[in-house]
């Protein structure tokens, strides 16, 4: 099992009111799986993703990565965990605006300490893979939305992660571009065996996955990540 949670909970304090964004969530994500997380707004989808990434601390429960508990890791250890095992694809692309496509893809490798001689060749290969070989020196603002998301996908693959966390990756794209991005994610998942956990509003996007989790009011109402 790549990633599993048991009894995962996240409670926010909003003023004097406590809000349970996640309650007793148990998911199992196999190596190479493509799991989609659906649910209405405010159901806890993004909170789940951020908690699995160590960007939010769970209030209850356990997170196991390849059998090892990780929920108690320090901030620095979580950062190292993200560098080594996770890739991210976000709704608004999250590209550094003053770095070129090539530099954006090299950034995770720089942060991970990949030998400098290996960074650029690998980034070029990845950009070629997402069909942006002719846009490497372009800044994000010089790229279309679909191209920016493909740069983000190439960046997510930079450190050869075990799991890509995708938060509404097609949310800002028109349907045609959305289909392209989904097809690309599916292809990478199948070719590389990289597991993907994708949060989405779109039923159409949810169909791409091999397994589905549906959340409502912070609780899983169907699925657990296994097919």
């Amino acid at each position: 099992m790549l990633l599993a949670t048991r009894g995962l909970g996240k409670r926010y304090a909003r003023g004097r009111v406590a809000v349970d964004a996640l309650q007793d969530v148990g998911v199992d994500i196999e190596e190479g799986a493509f799991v989609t997380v659906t649910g209405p707004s405010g159901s806890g989808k993004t909170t789940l993703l951020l908690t699995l990434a160590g960007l939010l601390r769970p209030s209850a429960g356990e997170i196991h990565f390849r059998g090892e508990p990780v929920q108690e890791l320090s901030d620095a250890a979580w950062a190292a965990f993200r560098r080594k095992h996770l890739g991210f694809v976000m709704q608004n692309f999250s590209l550094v605006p003053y770095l070129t496509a090539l530099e954006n893809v090299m950034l995770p490798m720089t942060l991970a300490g990949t030998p400098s001689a290996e960074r650029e060749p690998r980034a070029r290969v990845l950009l070629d893979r997402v069909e942006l070989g002719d846009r490497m020196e372009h800044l994000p603002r010089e790229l279309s939305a679909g191209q920016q998301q493909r740069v983000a996908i190439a960046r997510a693959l930079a450190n050869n992660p075990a799991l890509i966390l995708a938060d509404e990756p097609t949310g800002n794209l028109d349907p045609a571009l959305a289909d392209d991005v989904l097809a690309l994610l599916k292809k990478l998942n199948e070719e590389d065996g990289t597991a993907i956990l994708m949060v989405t509003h779109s039923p159409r996007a949810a169909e791409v996955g091999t397994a589905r989790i549906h959340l409502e009011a912070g609780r899983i109402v169907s699925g657990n990540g296994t097919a």
Partner: protein
Amino acid sequence: MKLAHVTWKELKHRRASLVSGLIAITLGIAVIVGIRAVTRASEYAVTVQLDSLGANVLVLPQGASVDEYHTADIDAPTFPEEYVETMVTSGLLGVENISPKLTRRTEVNGTSIVLTGVLPDSEVAKKPVWLMEGLVDGDGGGHVCKGRHGAAADPRLKRNIIEELDPGECLVGSAAAKRLGLEVGSVVTVKTAELEVIAINDPTGTVDDDRLFMHLHAMQDLLGIGKQLSVIEVMGCCSAISDGLLSKLRNILPDTRVTSISQIVSTQIETNRLMDRLSWGVLFIVLLVGGLSIGNYMWANVNQRRREIGIMRMLGAKRSSILGVLLAKALVLGVVGGLIGYGLGTIVVVGFGPDILGIEVEALPVWLGLSVLLATVVAVLGSLLPAWLASRFDPSANMQEV
């Protein structure tokens, strides 16, 4: 690609922000350098004014009184001129200038006048600044007050007329010239010597107005009293006087009476102390304001970069990496802003100082390095808190903003 590259790209990308940051730092440093240069020039100007008060230490013959120094009685005691050499070679710290004199009252054209023998170079140098070397043909080897080096080279301070005083020439005080009916070019007979008047001194309101000045050695020969002096006027550095210059002089010249002109000394000490406090006070205020301005800019810059900081945290950047990227920018801005600020501040005060302030302001080369150091330290310190806070931004909050 290295993280320094990220800093560099950000600097290039946000040019407007870069320019405004550089302006903040440059102006801060320019003001500091400008005020420092003006303060130094003011201190110098005040020093010149104080020096114009004349000698502040008198070395008199044992048993002589200050009254005798002023009245120059015919039988007033004297001491050997070689005492001057003794002082010069003693290596005393804080002696800025030595001026040996011989004074005797005599009659010229039936009028009683005080005749004063001076060594021209030393007389020139004594009142304005140090130039102890002038005493012995530029090779005296004396010591100067800290911070006054080079002042003697200032042409404003030279009295060329006295420098050119030959044994057959004399200078006449304004009152004496009136009483004797002398003018420039006149020849006046003093005992057996005929002296050409080469200048009439402007009124000074001192005993000098009633004197006739001639070359010391010519006067000694004329009076036939050998190599003798009535007084050695000493321009002592006021801090050195506080540190016991008088007793040191007494040790070197035990057969003399060493006395200070207390009013001059106390004025010099008090004024120097005031200028020093003023200088540090102004520097502190400017540093505080400049530092806050730079810190404010860095704070705004960090807030502007919250999004990309969130992205970097999401990608697994260590807090130290975030801190490094932000502080590297402060470092670059500090170095560049320090250099430009020094140049700007120097150009403004040196170029416009004489017109606006009425004083000559000189560049302070040592402040080039200090400016860069100061700007860098202030920029880094000003960035430290916002950068540290930025490294602790909740990345999930930043990502949800994304």
